[in-house]
């Protein structure tokens, strides 16, 4: 499908986090919904200002619960059904001995789902992204703050959005080519 606009979006560069936060709030108030902010440090307020919340805790909870069931179930099946052994006259389902490995499997599955879930929710690994076409963007991982309004935004207009973003106290407003 041919993109509706010749560019991916507009990118504004800011000197500090406060100015970025202010710009994000103003864009939100002006009715923009599809935007992204880039910061060298985690800034929770910015994520909330542009409307993001993480659903990761649920993924980790499910992963941990699965690990718990798989861990205990594996030991139960092996000890009772797959390969029953009499160890010191204990019952085959000697569950107190199974607690340690059940715990370890719970942690292992939860940790794996935290990492894989984080990567999946973030769409990583992603080899190409248009924002890297703006040369100034390499400072996003050093000391500059960026706000991008995407062309996908319903309120986006080639001229109007650029003029709107130029009202911010930004160092630069640049086009982001596809």
């Amino acid at each position, binding site marked *: 499908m041919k993109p509706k606009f010749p560019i991916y979006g507009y990118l504004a560069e*800011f*000197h*500090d*986090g*406060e100015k970025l936060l202010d710009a994000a709030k103003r864009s939100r108030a002006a009715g923009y919904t599809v935007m*992204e902010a*880039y*910061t*060298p*440090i*985690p*800034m*929770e307020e*910015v*994520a909330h200002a*542009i409307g*993001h919340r*993480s659903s*990761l*805790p649920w993924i980790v909870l499910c992963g*941990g619960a699965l690990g718990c069931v798989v861990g205990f179930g594996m*030991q139960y099946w*092996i*000890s009772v059904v*797959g*390969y029953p*052994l009499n*160890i*010191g006259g204990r019952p085959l389902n000697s569950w107190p*001995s199974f607690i*340690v*490995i059940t*715990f*370890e*499997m719970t*942690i*292992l599955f*939860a*940790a*794996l789902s*935290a*990492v894989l*879930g*984080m*990567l999946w929710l*973030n769409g*990583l*690994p*992603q*080899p*190409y*992204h248009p*924002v890297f076409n703006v040369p100034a963007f390499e*400072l*996003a*991982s*050093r*000391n*500059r*703050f960026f706000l991008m309004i995407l062309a996908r935004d319903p309120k986006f207009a080639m001229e109007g959005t650029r003029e709107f973003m130029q009202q911010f106290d930004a160092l630069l407003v640049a086009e982001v080519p596809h």
Partner: protein
Amino acid sequence: MQTSKQAPGLQETAVRPVIEPGHSLATITDQISRIVLQRRTPTGWFIAVGIASLFVMMLITSLVYLVIRGVGLWGINEPVAWGFDIVNFVWWIGIGHAGTLISAVLLLLRQAWRTSINRFAEAMTLFAVMCAGIFPLFHVGRPWLAHWLLPYPNTMGVWPQFRSPLLWDVFAVSTYATVSALFWYVGLIPDLATLRDRARSLAWKRVYGALALGWRGAARHWEHYETAYLLLAGLATPLVVSVHTVVSFDFAVSVIPGWHATIMPPYFVAGAIYSGFAMVMTLAIPIRKFYRLEDFITMKHLDYMAKVILATGLIVCYGYAMEAFFAWYAGNQYERFMIINRMFGQYAWSYWCLIACNLVTPQFLWSKRIRRSVPALLVICIIVNIGMWLERFVIVVTSLARDYLPSSWDVYVPTRWDIALYLGTIGLFVFLLLLFIRFLPMISIFEMRTLVPATGEEPVKPPKVEVAP
């Protein structure tokens, strides 16, 4: 107030900062990434790698010869079937614990001072666990069949026996290694993106770019990332306590005098933290000097770590006292014999060296003057590491050499191959650590950035710090 006019030396009594003043987002990023991205590798680094690789070669040689000849090469036999191999395994695993403690527990407790040492301590954990893993893997005798420890469907129709603490250990240590590696890599992702954006050569841009997985520092990224990091810390905290507990079960669940005690799990965990912090200090002191990182790893860090060593050292001493008390109070003749044998038997020298290293030495840390003297701290930490090695030696060897049957009593003497393998793992540890500090940021850049105001000030003057030539 006149304090602002005072000389810096006079302010030492006031609260000391976790990062020296005058830093901004830009200076932190530049100074830490320069260590990795500089073109010229310091000569000292090559010398250190050269020495470490000699020891790595010794490790490889002793492992290859061990596989050819079998574990009879070591000094182990009945009744002392666990010698240097298990002593070293427990020692290395214990050292790893401080890394997880610093990165996870101190994160949950919101201790900002952890930020400049956590990356480095996590790497130490990872390498210590690798060194630890070598010992039980080769101690099984036929390491090419080590996968029999894992539950997998096989043509023999045989499955592992889950009531054995040795199998619990397999799961605990492999989970610990996996989670430590995940935690470390996740922590590295934003810094790898920084290196990608700052590397000058295209090849390194590609390498760091691939490892950074396309990280852009987007608000959405950070939101999920921070959640994941916090959850991992929450998961790693009970895990780290469980790992050394399970290691102690290898001893406590058996019926050997001196091993079969409920004090073992807490005493092992405290000992692990104690030795781990001592190792962090032993490594951090020379590295901060060599790479001139005193602005980031300040005296405040050393002071806090010294206090942690003192506190955990006291818990360990309590463990020794309780061990002796139980032996007397329980009225069990084997237990009583065990403690008398430890104190006055053939291995008495190791017990009293242990008491000198672990009970006497850390008491010097009560003194503020000693906590402020970097050479004194280094010496104390090395002694603590020796002491914790001796502790495992005392536990493993003295109990086995004199168990229930006097007819089977024997003396354990390590062979030169035991010593070569041990020194070899120390070489491997140092070698991996040197590679790490050359190619990856040893201090977490993005977490250090959170300690300064969020503004894009450019450095007014070129940073005074240059890497030592």
